[in-house]
């Protein structure tokens, strides 16, 4: 059992002519935005923080675009019936597609990061950046991947989850209590506070939390693909 590497070129092409165009536009717009911020004077520090926040959200948006429908798009039209009559393993086929999407997210995010780095004179790009982005992709992209094996509106569901999480964070910063249900939900939501691309890599318990969350989502997706029936009824 191995990755269908001979098919990788077609997957790159699907990504480039599918969400790739929108991803490129988004990355360029974000780069344009951060290239125009004020870098000196009293607003310099705030501008840098805002630019790094733009980088975070751009990477997340690129992840949602790249991984949206990674599995569900085929199942929605019944294409999996034709696809997996070929000697191809469904988990490995979709894992390869997910990894290629990750490379596209890395390229798009690197464009924005490079713009910030040159604008603010920061050493942002490097192995540390790749590691932080890989963790972010593992968590957010892994969650979309898992949901994509189960439902159709995968990226929308994760976007809604992240929006709700952000609103809850804002409410808490204004002094609202979390409550027991909120505490449980917090454990189920992606650990976004540990995934800022401008921060150092989380260490200790933080790193474990991120890796376990992302690995659970990724392995969950692969397990569903391994064990779920590839058809719901006789014809679907």
């Amino acid at each position, binding site marked *: 059992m191995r990755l269908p590497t001979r098919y990788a070129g077609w997957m790159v092409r699907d990504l480039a002519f599918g969400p790739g165009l929108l991803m490129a536009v988004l990355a360029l717009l974000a780069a344009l935005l951060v290239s125009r911020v004020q870098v000196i004077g009293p607003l310099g520090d705030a501008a840098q923080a805002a630019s790094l926040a733009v980088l975070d959200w751009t990477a997340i948006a690129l992840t949602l675009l790249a991984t949206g429908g990674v599995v569900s798009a085929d199942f929605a039209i*019944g294409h999996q*019936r*034709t696809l997996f*009559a*070929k*000697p191809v393993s469904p988990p490995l086929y979709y894992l390869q597609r997910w990894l290629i999407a990750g490379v596209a997210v890395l390229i798009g995010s690197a464009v924005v990061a490079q713009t910030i780095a040159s604008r603010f004179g920061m050493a942002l790009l490097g192995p540390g950046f790749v590691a932080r982005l890989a963790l972010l992709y593992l968590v957010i992209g892994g969650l979309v991947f898992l949901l994509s094996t189960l439902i159709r509106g995968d990226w929308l569901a994760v976007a809604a989850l992240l929006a709700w999480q952000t609103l809850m964070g804002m409410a808490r910063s204004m002094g609202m209590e979390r409550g027991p249900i909120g505490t449980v939900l917090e454990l189920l939501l992606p650990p976004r506070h540990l995934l800022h691309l401008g921060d150092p890599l989380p260490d200790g318990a933080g790193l474990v939390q991120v890796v376990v969350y992302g690995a659970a989502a990724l392995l969950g997706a692969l397990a569903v693909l391994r064990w779920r029936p*590839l058809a719901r009824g*006789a014809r679907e």
Partner: protein
Amino acid sequence: MIELQGLSKTYRSLLGGRVVPALDDLTLTLARGEVVGVAGPNGAGKTTLISLLLGYLFPTRGTLLVEGAPPRTWVERHGVGYLAELVAIPGHWAVDAALRRYAVLAQVPAQRVPERVEALLRDFGLADQRTKRVRELSKGNLQRLGLAQALAGDNDLVVLDEPTHGLDPLWTQRFRDTVRDLRRPSRLILIASHNLDELERLADRVLILHLGRVERIVAAGAGAMPSAGVEVAYRLALAAAHPALARVFPGAAPIEGRQAEWRVRGDLEALNRGLAELLSAGAVVTAFAPEESRLESEFRAAVGGDA
């Protein structure tokens, strides 16, 4: 090659409230070198059987093994030449690109992909459609693309679900030639179809499914006899009406609008005896021909009024 042992499949609604039995206790063996037809009325379980065979669904009870392995394991290792009943290929793909993709996935060696794709485009009459998007194809052309992708690899197991659906008579004929060309001792070909005439021409034997059960297995081909007790209908034409007819074939029914022609029914032996008696009584028989194919008779006998 394929062994089914007490195979059953039941569909359940999400909350388990509604239970729909699709296949019930199938036990049979399918061997390499065979062309096996699967016939049955709508909802008989034909497509469920194929989904189980490809490992797309799991049995509720019983086992299904392909060369001793679970179907999914076998399919991921060897691949199946499979045409789905509903051909679902992304609409934005171009026809030739779609075939190149499927040839790659079917493990056709890289250097042989272009020639394989050209051969498929030529054999299935798609050469002039090669740059068209899949969504722009007519129903017949889409079906031919479905057949072409199914045969992109060189598989020992070929499963075709309603292969002539949407094909015109010319391409239906060509499809029969294709299946004849596909025959080889190491290959098992399974064809599910509503078209009994097609199955009778192509298959070595035909499984007739009804309400999830194998009602009968009919040996196809010109020399094969109908199962015992199966009535067949024949058209009998005489040079002129003969008084012995009513005695020999009491149930003979005149065919409307035809002079001296009757429809007679019975098992094959009884019909032969009657014909001999009629001839010895001096009747001049001008035609004696089956009104329906033998498989149609078997099918009608198996599924009764549900067909």
